[in-house]
C-alpha cells in the first residue's frame, strides 16, 4: 500500500488547504494590496499610492497613541491576569493546610471556582452594560455610590472613570482582568491537578512553606500552561476591540475621551467604516499583523524551557 500513501494524504489535505488559502491567506494578501491604495471602502475605484499610507502612519499621533495603549495592555494584562489567576488557583488547589497534613485547597474551593468563573460566561454586551452601571459618572453609579457613601468622594464632584483621560485605560484594564481571571484560574487548576500529589507531599515532609511550594514546584511544572495563557492574553490585549468600542466615550467605536483609550483596532474600524479611509485602515492592519507576528516569535522564544516529564 505504500505507493498509494501520497494521494491518500493529499486527498485529505486538499480541502482544508483550499479553505485556508481562500479564507485566510488570500484576504491577508488582499489587505496588503489594499494598503497600497487610497481605497475609500465604498466604491470600486482606487488608485495605487505606494507606501503613502505607511508614511502617513508614521506621523499620525492618534495611531502612535493607539499603539502605545496596545503595548501597555500587552504588558499589563497578561502579567496581572496570570498573577492573580495563579494565586487563586494555587490557593484553591494546594494552598489549604488541613490538620491532617494532606494536600488540598482552602475551604469552599469548589464554590470559589464557580464564582470566579462567572464573568467568563457573560458576553461582551452584558459586560458593557454591567460596567457601564459600575462606572456611571454620577452618584447613581455603583463605584461612585460606594465612594460617596464612604465619604471618599464628594457627591458634587464624583470620579469620572471612563470619561477621565487619566483613568479610562485603567478602567478598561480592570474589566479585562476581572472577566479573564476566572478562565485562567480554571485552566491553571486543571494543570495543577495534573501535578502528582506525592511531589507536594515530599515537599511538605521537607518542611516547605506555601511560597516555596509555589515557586519551586507549582510554577515550574505549570510553565507550559502559563505560556499558553500568555499567548491568549496577548491576543486579547492586541484586540480588546469590542469592550473598548462599547464602553468608552465617543461616537463610532469609542476610544475617547479625546483618543485616550484609542486602540489600533478601534482606530482601524473608524478609519475603515466611518472616515472612508479603507486603504489607510488596511495599512494599520498590516502593521498589527507584523507587530503580532514579531511578538509571538519573541514570546515563544523567550519563554522556551525544557519540558519536564512526570
Amino acid at each position: 500500500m505504500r505507493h498509494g500513501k501520497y494521494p491518500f494524504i493529499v486527498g485529505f489535505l486538499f480541502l482544508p488547504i483550499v479553505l485556508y488559502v481562500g479564507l485566510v491567506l488570500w484576504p491577508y494578501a488582499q489587505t496588503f494590496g489594499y494598503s497600497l491604495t487610497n481605497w475609500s471602502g465604498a466604491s470600486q475605484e482606487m488608485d495605487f499610492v505606494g507606501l503613502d499610507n505607511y508614511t502617513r502612519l508614521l506621523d499620525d499621533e492618534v495611531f502612535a497613541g493607539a499603539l502605545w495603549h496596545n503595548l501597555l495592555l500587552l504588558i499589563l494584562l497578561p502579567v496581572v491576569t496570570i498573577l492573580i489567576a495563579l494565586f487563586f488557583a494555587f490557593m484553591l488547589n494546594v494552598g489549604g493546610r488541613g490538620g491532617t497534613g494532606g494536600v488540598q485547597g482552602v475551604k469552599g474551593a469548589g464554590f470559589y471556582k464557580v464564582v470566579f468563573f462567572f464573568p467568563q460566561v457573560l458576553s461582551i454586551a452584558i459586560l458593557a452594560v454591567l460596567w457601564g452601571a459600575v462606572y456611571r459618572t454620577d452618584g447613581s453609579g455603583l463605584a461612585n455610590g460606594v465612594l460617596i457613601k464612604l465619604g471618599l468622594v464628594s457627591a458634587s464632584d464624583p470620579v469620572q472613570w471612563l470619561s477621565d483621560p487619566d483613568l479610562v485605560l485603567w478602567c478598561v484594564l480592570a474589566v479585562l482582568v476581572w472577566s479573564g481571571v476566572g478562565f485562567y484560574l480554571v485552566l491553571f487548576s486543571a494543570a495543577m491537578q495534573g501535578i502528582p500529589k506525592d511531589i507536594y507531599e515530599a515537599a511538605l515532609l521537607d518542611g516547605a512553606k506555601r511560597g516555596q511550594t509555589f515557586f519551586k514546584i507549582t510554577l515550574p511544572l505549570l510553565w507550559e500552561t502559563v505560556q499558553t495563557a500568555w499567548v491568549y492574553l496577548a491576543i486579547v490585549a492586541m484586540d480588546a476591540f469590542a469592550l473598548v468600542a462599547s464602553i468608552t466615550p465617543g461616537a463610532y467605536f469609542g476610544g475617547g475621551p479625546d483618543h485616550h483609550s484609542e486602540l489600533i483596532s478601534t482606530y482601524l474600524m473608524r478609519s475603515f467604516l466611518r472616515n472612508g479611509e479603507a486603504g489607510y485602515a488596511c495599512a494599520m492592519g498590516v502593521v498589527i499583523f507584523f507587530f503580532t507576528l514579531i511578538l509571538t516569535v519573541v514570546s515563544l522564544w523567550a519563554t522556551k524551557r525544557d519540558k519536564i516529564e512526570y
Partner: protein
Amino acid sequence: MGSATEYNRRDLFKRAAAITVLAAGSSSLLAACAGGTGSSDKGTKAAGGYNLSDAKNPFGVKDADGLEVFIFDGGYGNEYAKAFEAIYSKQFPGAKINHQADKDVTGKLQPRFNAGSPPDVIDDSGAKQMKLDVLADSNQLTDLAPLLDAPYIDDPSKKIRDVLLPGTIDSGTVKGKVYNLSYVYTVFGWWYSGKLFKDNGWTVPKTWAEFITLCEQIKAKGIAPVAHQGKYPYYINVVMMDMIAKQGGLELMKRIDSLDAAAWDDPAVKTAVEAFFQIVDKDFLLTGTNGMTHIESQTAWNQYKAAFIPSGSWLENEQLPTTPADFDMKFLPMPSLPGDKLPFEAIRAGAGEPFIVPSKAKNVAGGLEFLRMMLTKEASGKFAQTANSLTCLKDGVGPEVQLKPGTASTVVALKAAGDHTFNYQYPNTASKFDEDLQNASGELMAKRITPAEWIKRAKESATKNKTA
C-alpha cells in the same frame, strides 16, 4: 456591539445624505453583483414618458398592478406605512399590496436587487441600509425628478417640488440626481419641560443673556440647568455649532463646511464659543453629565434633575417610556447672542429616512405614485401621529391632528422659522473633521481646554483635513 441603537439614532439625520457607512465588503460585493446583472434599465422611463399634467394619475399607474412596499422597521416602526397603503388602495382598489418590514434591509433586499426583482418602494434606512451611492452607481434607482415635477395631490396647482421643506431635495441628491425622498424632518435645539417651567414661573429665554440668568435661577432652586449626552459629544456640538452659525450667518457656516481654516478666525466664532462656555464656567452642568450616555442623561432630564438638554426632534419618541405624562416636552431654538446674523427663530433642520423606487421594480409608476401619496396632509399627519415626528412636507400637519407636546412644539418652531433653517454638511462630507470637533468639545465640557484652545483645534483639524 452593545450600542447599535446609538449608531442608529445619531445617524438619523445623516442618513439623509446617504453617507452612512455599511460594511464595505458587502457593498463592494453588491456593486459587483448589481453591475453584473447586465440587463439594461428596463422599466426606467424618461421623465417625458409620464403625463405630468394629469393630477389624478400622472405616472399612469395601472389598477391591476400589485405594489410591494418594504419598510425599515426602526425607530419609527412600520404602522405608518400601513396607513399609507390604505390611501393607495382607496385610489387603486385593484392593486394587491404586499407589505413587508424588517430591520435588515441589506440582508433582505440585496439578493432581490441582484436577481433584478426588487420591491417597488423601499424605506432604505438603519444600520444595515443599502448604500445609496452604490445603488445609484449601478443604475438601480429611479430618478425622482418626475415625482418632483408632478402635481401635489392636496393642491394640484402646485408641484411636489414646491411643497417640500428646505433641504429635502439636497438630502435626496446623490451624485447630482435626486434618487431618494428623505421623508422625516428633524429639527435641533434645546428641550425643556413645560411643566417644570410653569411650576417655577420661569419664562422661556430668547437671548443668551436671558438663558444664562435663568440658569442662575434654576441652579438656585437646586436643579441642574443643563444636561448633555456627554459620552457622545455630538449633541453638545450641535449647540456650539448652531450658536456659531447664528452669530456668523450662513456664509460662515458654508466656509466651515468647506473646511476653510480661516473661517475659524472669524470673530463670530470666538463670540459664540466664549458665550457658550459660560455653561461650563458657571458650573451649570448636571453632575456627571459629561460621562453619561444619551439614555442616562435624557432620563435624568425626564426626572426633572436638569432643566435643558440639547437634541434632535427624535427625542420625544425616544423618551416615550420614561417621560412623565404631564412633562409637557417643549422645543427651544438656540437663544440669540447680540449681533446674531440669523434671527432667534432660526433652527438647524434637515430631512432624513430615504425612500427609494428601484429602477428594476415591477411597478415603478406605482412606487412613484406611492411616494406622491406620502406627500399629502393626510399621510403626513398620520406619520406625525404614529411616529411622533414631522415629515418633509411643508405645513404637513394640520391643526386637526393630535400631536404629542414635543412634536407639536416643533411644528410651531418650524413655522416660526420659515425660511430660516440651516444645516451643516460637514458631518456628512468631512467625518474626520467632525470627529476632531466632537473630541475637542468633550474636552471643553470637562474644562480640560479653554474656548481659545477649542477654536485652535478646530482650525488645525480644518487645515489638516482640507489637504488630506
